[in-house]
């Protein structure tokens, strides 16, 4: 069981990091919001186990791509840990984006060679 979880996390890791960075371009958000956003925008196609967001968030924070701060939410009287994109994070997003595009193109070329022409 333990093994399976790890494997899935590994598969998702790169992609998940990119998705988180992309989400935060819209403005600061806390973990739950990020999870919900990804789920909603992909029409529930990408089922991210919410818990697995946190290792990724903490990793991105340690690398300096995000900063985190406990702040009171505007609509409620409660504190949440809000993540913000840093300049380095923005740069990283573009790097990951271009990498992803390259990869997607490569996969597409293999899968649907006819449509290319």
């Amino acid at each position, binding site marked *: 069981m333990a*093994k399976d*979880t790890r494997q899935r996390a590994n598969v998702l890791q790169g992609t998940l990091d990119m998705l988180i960075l992309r989400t935060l371009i819209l403005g600061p958000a806390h973990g739950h919001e990020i999870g919900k956003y990804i789920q909603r925008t992909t029409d529930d196609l990408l089922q991210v186990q*919410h*818990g697995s967001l*946190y290792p990724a968030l903490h990793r991105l924070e*340690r690398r300096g791509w995000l900063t985190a701060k406990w702040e009171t939410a505007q609509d409620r009287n409660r504190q949440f840990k809000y993540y913000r994109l840093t300049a380095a994070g923005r740069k990283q997003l573009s790097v990951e984006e271009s990498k992803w595009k390259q990869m997607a193109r490569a996969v597409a070329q293999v899968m649907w060679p006819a449509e290319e022409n």
Partner: protein
Amino acid sequence: MRWWKKNDREHDMEKEFASHLELEAEEQRAKGLSVEEARYAAQRAFGNTALMKEQTREEWGWLKLEIALKDVQYGIRGLFRSPIFTIVSVLSLALGIGATTGIFGTFEAVFLNAVTARNLGQLEHIEPGDSNVSYRCFQYLSSANIPTVEGLVAYFESGLSLRSGTEMERITGDIVSPNFFAVLGVTPAMGRAFSEDEQQPGRQPHVAIVSHGFWQRKFDARPDVLGKVIELNREVFTIVGVLPKNYRSVHGYGMSPEVYVPLSKELVGDLNDPSLGSLNLIARMQDGVTFSQLKASLGPVVQSWRQLYPGDGRYAGKIDVYPLTGIEKMRRDGIPLELTVFLLLLILVAVLILLIACANVAGLLVARGANRSREIAVRLALGAPRYRVIQQLLTETALLAFLGSCAGIALYLALATAAEKLQIRESVPFELHLHLDRTLLYFSIGLVALTTLLSGLVPALQSSRNSWHLRSNQIGAETYQRFSLRRALVVGQFALAFVLLVSASLFLRGLAKNSHADPGFNMQHLLTVEVTLNDASYSAYRSERYFERAINEISRLQGIRSVAGASTVPLGIEHWVIGSIRVNDRNVPRVFVNSVTPGYFQAMQIPLLKGRDFQADDRADSPPVAIVNQTFANAYLKGDGLSNLVYVPIAGTGTPPTFLPIQIIGIARDSKYGSLGEEAAPALYWPVSQHYSPPTLMVDSASAPASVITAIRQTLVSLEPRAPPPCQHL
């Protein structure tokens, strides 16, 4: 965040996770679920909280260290929980490691690295054709400026008479060239080494450096020992230095001479007498010089020495070079190969003990692992990765091995301290200086690592595998598997123990056989009396007369069966061996030789098988005669052996030397000469009157020796009041 802020971070994570779960639950409730259901749904969406926490922590870095610390903490708690298991394992490992390092340490101290010196590997014994050289030869070699040699020292061991108050005591000292300690690279613990201006042998006042043991024994370790005087052979010596406590002398084997004095006329007689000389040489090679380069560069120098003194036939043999320690030295010193093998086997046995200890601990760990399988199963079920479980179990065994080796080293240190205190006052003082040196330390660390792996890995792997299956309720199969490993361990242990038992009993049998070995002469009630006459005031003639009278007087004492003199005591420390005797056109490579007085065979109770004993009228001017032993007679003599002639080279008559024909007049039964364990060896006796060397008196007393010692002492003192009273031992 830094790792020491871990608790803050931990709290932060808890809060973050909680707020997430709360928000999710709120949303679920909004969808119409009950409070309880909403909470479960939120948890489901979140996943395994514990695992997520673990994975998040991993992202913080420093985790490996934290995990290791946690494991150690957990391990210590675990060990405390089962104190009997812990004590048994630690003791078991301590015994194994203690025994192994102890025996290895002893071996190292006695044989492997038995000499204290800077860069021991650069030092070599040199034998320019003869194992012992004259002072003249030493001086020639020293001044020859051999390019490969950085320094050359000479030394020889000698019995010295030490006066303390009115008592005289026989001690062992090394008489050395003054550069001895400088070339060896030994700095005294107190005071100084011999200085440059003491290079002149015989310079007054005489100086001495004493061993740490001597300083403690004679001066009660008083710090004001420097400048104090001691009287050796009736000469006054000023103490200028005390050697370090763990100084291991160049003799090796734990032999520790008590004083070191520079070569002087008063102690060794005329230094320029070419026939006189029992110096051993040690050379320090220049940096980067190899053994064979040294040997090659000695050739021309020794050759020119031979041309300078063509009459000095004793340097005719080949030049020999060998290191100060190791197998080669042991072979030359007559240490039987069997003893070396025995000691190596002893180490092997000690290692076997350690392996058994490891097997024991492994067995205990497997048993413990079985008891803990439920705990491990729970941990695995909670999502603990298998490697973490194994890592944790390994930490625990490493902890155990660490404790065990600490206890083992403590045990070793206790043994070493005990060995330091052990002072066997044989004819040469024997001191054992075990110290935890680098080789030994690496050796123990290696053992610890091995122990951890051996006793940790197998049970750890098995425990975690067992538990893995246990989860699927297949208990039956697993217990079987576990028992098969335990059975293998038991069989292994039994086999090792059996090997140990057999080898131990073989050693014991060998020892028993040795101690019952017949030396071939009477050892009971045999007393040896060694009298040192001052060489300077006694000519050979006067000394000979003195011993004649001494033997005469002692034989008339009550309770004395017989008394005789011999230049060497069989099974003593010194042997007299000569080569290149010719007999019946054959060369006898190695013969034990002894100069004895008439009556020696009677006193020693060695039967004469043929011929006659020496008599009073076998004088220096009568035809040379000799008695040989059976082995000699069987191998080399013709007919009944009597009146065969043996030809003995006369020292100092050139190359080839002049041979002295000696007639065989008797054949004695074989006995032991060098050591109890030796094979039958050829031996030759000649009368002390024809080959004079100051004899040791051998007294065969009818009653227990103790009762006659006083009488002998009185007799000898009345004969020569100035001669130091004799030293007596069995």
